[in-house]
């Protein structure tokens, strides 16, 4: 079985206040060498048959990401079982 992974990230020019809040919390963990944190979303899609990248791209473009504020990347995880193992 193959899985398609869609990674959605805010565009670089869009402010990410969640990422900033996390970055601001890091010094409290004693971490002082991180200059930036940005938060995105990973979505895993499993097709009933062969993974269809064009279909996944369409899903990502229409629903999973908002192209006004977000970019996305699509990749295939070839062997899901191997990944789990």
């Amino acid at each position, binding site marked *: 079985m193959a899985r398609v992974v869609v990674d959605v990230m805010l565009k670089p020019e*869009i*402010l990410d*206040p*969640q990422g900033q*809040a996390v970055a601001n919390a890091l010094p409290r963990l004693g971490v002082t060498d991180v200059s930036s944190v940005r938060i995105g979303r990973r979505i895993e899609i499993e097709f009933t048959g062969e993974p269809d990248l064009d279909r996944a791209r369409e899903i990502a473009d229409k*629903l999973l990401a*908002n192209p*006004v*504020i977000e970019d996305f990347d699509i990749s295939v995880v070839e062997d899901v079982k191997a990944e789990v193992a």
Partner: protein
Amino acid sequence: MRIGVVTFPGSLDDGDAARAVRLAGADAVRLWHGDPDLHNVDAVVLPGGFSYGDYLRCGAIARFAPAMESIIDAARGGLPVLGICNGFQILCEAHLLPGALTRNQHLHFRNRDQWLRVESADTAWTNTFQPGQEILIPVKNGEGCYVADQRTLDALEAEGRVVARYIRGNPNGSQRDIAAVTNEAGNVVGIMPHPEHAVEALTGPSLDGLGFFTSVLRALAGATAGASHAGGHQ
């Protein structure tokens, strides 16, 4: 006049929106998200709340509701549509309005009475206001920060499509203090604060919100008069 108010799973302010419609003197027609039939309404209000639990992104799933498919088509044909708060988010997700609403810059939910300046009275939903008029209506959102690229913002300003701006404090970090925008035709308006909560002295900080609902009645009356006038010359 029949004004539709759509209820999505997770809508909160559909009852108040319907009440505001009635107080303005129209019939409120409750529409269900799963029903593509708009029941011959003359205009539509998309109310505030958390449609589909705000899953994925606010408004992202509501945009594909059967009722929304019909509303998107009708709005492109000129049907007046007002999106309030979550309704504004849905209109942006549906690409009926430019830009997007993102997490408040300070990450806090804001719930307070908010002063706005009405920048444009040339829309179906603001024609009873004076340009520059200052109004007080409640704002309550966690993801109300309006963003768009600079070119879009410049175009909105140049075309007079910024409908209202926050004054005396920006509650969410919206670019250029934008609280409400309209489409090119002026029939679709999205506003983050809640005019439907400012229609009665008992519960609201003012009666300023009523103007949005009386405006659409005036717009519709004008359209009807225009249509019958045009008909008379045929």
